[in-house]
């Protein structure tokens, strides 16, 4: 595992408080599995000690460029949003285990469901699934039109259904409200978002195969501090560590 200094090539606000940051450096070549994350140092000095886990949203291996999308909400992500092109960002990664792509065969469909700031990793995942011949459908949930991002980019990959809580774009409601019709051809489900959303997705999925990417506050990000555990009934230990055993787990594996 590695620590890298990556150079910012762009860092722009693409929706309300949502930033797209592009980073370049030799470390990018390791970032091949969608669903993995980078543990990003936000401060210049010691007042923001903890790194922020951010999913890899896209990777251009030829240009050695990785894309992160993040919401500038707290202290750390706000600092990140103020960094300029040319500045270096200290990241650990890629960390964790990404989505298992082997489980979809080409004839199957995939349904990718993302809520809010859980949307980013689905982009890299969607691209890879598509290029291996899978037909991909997205359901992307946002608060409102102003909070939505990357919708057109998703549409380039596959059918994209947008839901907003206030109905200002796409369907009014939650991602789960849009799932029903997409389940008919028994797709493999991939979902990223807050815990409550994942739980609802799992319930709606009614036994279909799927993978969920979990979020939790992290310390080390590499499996050493036990900050990010999640109970499971399927493993003897009784828990998994989201940072190193996950963040992606098979549906049903963990207790949400």
């Amino acid at each position: 595992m590695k620590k890298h200094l990556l150079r910012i090539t762009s860092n722009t606000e693409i929706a309300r408080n949502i930033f797209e940051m592009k980073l370049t450096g030799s470390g990018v070549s390791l970032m091949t599995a969608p669903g993995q994350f980078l543990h990003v140092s936000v401060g210049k000095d010691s007042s923001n000690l903890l790194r922020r886990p951010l999913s890899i949203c896209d990777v251009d291996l030829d240009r050695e460029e990785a894309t992160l999308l993040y919401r500038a909400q707290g202290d750390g992500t706000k600092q990140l949003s103020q960094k300029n092109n040319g500045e270096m960002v200290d990241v650990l990664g890629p960390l964790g285990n990404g989505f298992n792509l082997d489980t979809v065969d080409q004839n199957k469909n995939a349904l990718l469901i993302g809520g809010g700031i859980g949307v980013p990793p689905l982009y890299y995942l969607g691209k890879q699934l598509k290029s291996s011949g899978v037909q991909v459908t997205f359901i992307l949930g946002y608060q409102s039109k102003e909070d939505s991002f990357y919708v057109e980019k998703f549409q380039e990959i596959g059918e994209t259904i947008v839901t907003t809580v206030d109905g200002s774009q796409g369907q009014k409601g939650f991602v789960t409200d849009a799932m029903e019709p997409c389940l008919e051809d028994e797709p493999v489900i991939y979902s990223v978002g807050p815990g409550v959303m994942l739980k609802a997705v799992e319930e709606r999925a009614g036994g279909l195969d799927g993978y969920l990417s979990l979020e939790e506050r992290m310390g080390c990000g590499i499996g050493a501090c036990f900050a990010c555990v999640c109970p499971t009934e399927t493993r003897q230990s009784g828990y998994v560590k989201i940072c190193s055993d996950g963040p992606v787990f098979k549906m049903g594996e963990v207790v949400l």
Partner: protein
Amino acid sequence: MSRLSVSLPGLNMKNPILPASGCFGFGKEYAKWYDLSLLGGITIKAATLEGRFGNPTPRVAETESGMLNAIGLQNPGVINILENELPALEPYNIPILANIAGSTEEEYIEVTRQISASPLVSAVELNISCPNVKEGGIQFGTHYKSAADLTRQVKQVSEKPVYVKLSPNVSNIVEMAQAVEAAGADGLSMINTLIGMKLDWRTGKPILANKTGGLSGPAIKPVAIRMIYEVSQKVSLPIIGMGGVSTAEDVLEMMSAGASAVAVGTANFVNPYVCPEIIEKLPDLLDEIGVRNISEMTGRSFRQWKTPLSSR
């Protein structure tokens, strides 16, 4: 003997740096980052008799120049540690300090008996200062008498030297140190975390599911330095210092205050390479101030200030 080597009861270390308990798991995660044999030693995560799941999440929160944690002593239990975790550390051939916790005296004693018997364990660290569990932990660490009693009993069964890990959440750290010294401790580890809390101002709710947690990181270093300084002058036990250390300069500051070895906790999360990087830098700093052996640093501050020094 290299200029960085230090020698404490049970711990012959090629340099004074060891990761602090709970911040390094059982070592195997960091072994993916660097060769652990570079370290002076390793403190493993607290062992209890049975496996424990610990507290609900969120278990960590960030504070200014620090963090709060309320892991709650999650660990697979002493038998599992002896069978599955410790053997993996054997190849690195460095001293292992086994951190021990429990809810009752009996549990502490039993865990000590088992773990101190392992040839892989060089010394035990009695964690009487964990602020994040309801029973045991800090309740032993804030009463002189319980701390001394526990130390005495653990010493009776331990096959290895015993370091007592002190809580900073006390009115008089010197009395506490003297109590465990009198009870037979071979050394002290200090400090564990300060009890702290953070609320979300929007909701008014604590960030940690456990509400309160242990404050660690650079924010607490001044408290650690002060306590190590005070205690080292009043007891004759060697001290493993910790609390907010993240640079080689911090290590020398802490040794000057009276520590004989230094543990690094939270800083591992900031930079997984921090321990080897510190170790690499120490000789340059010693050169800069013209000190040959790092062991000479211990207690420099009060030697220079001519404060009576009853230790070492």
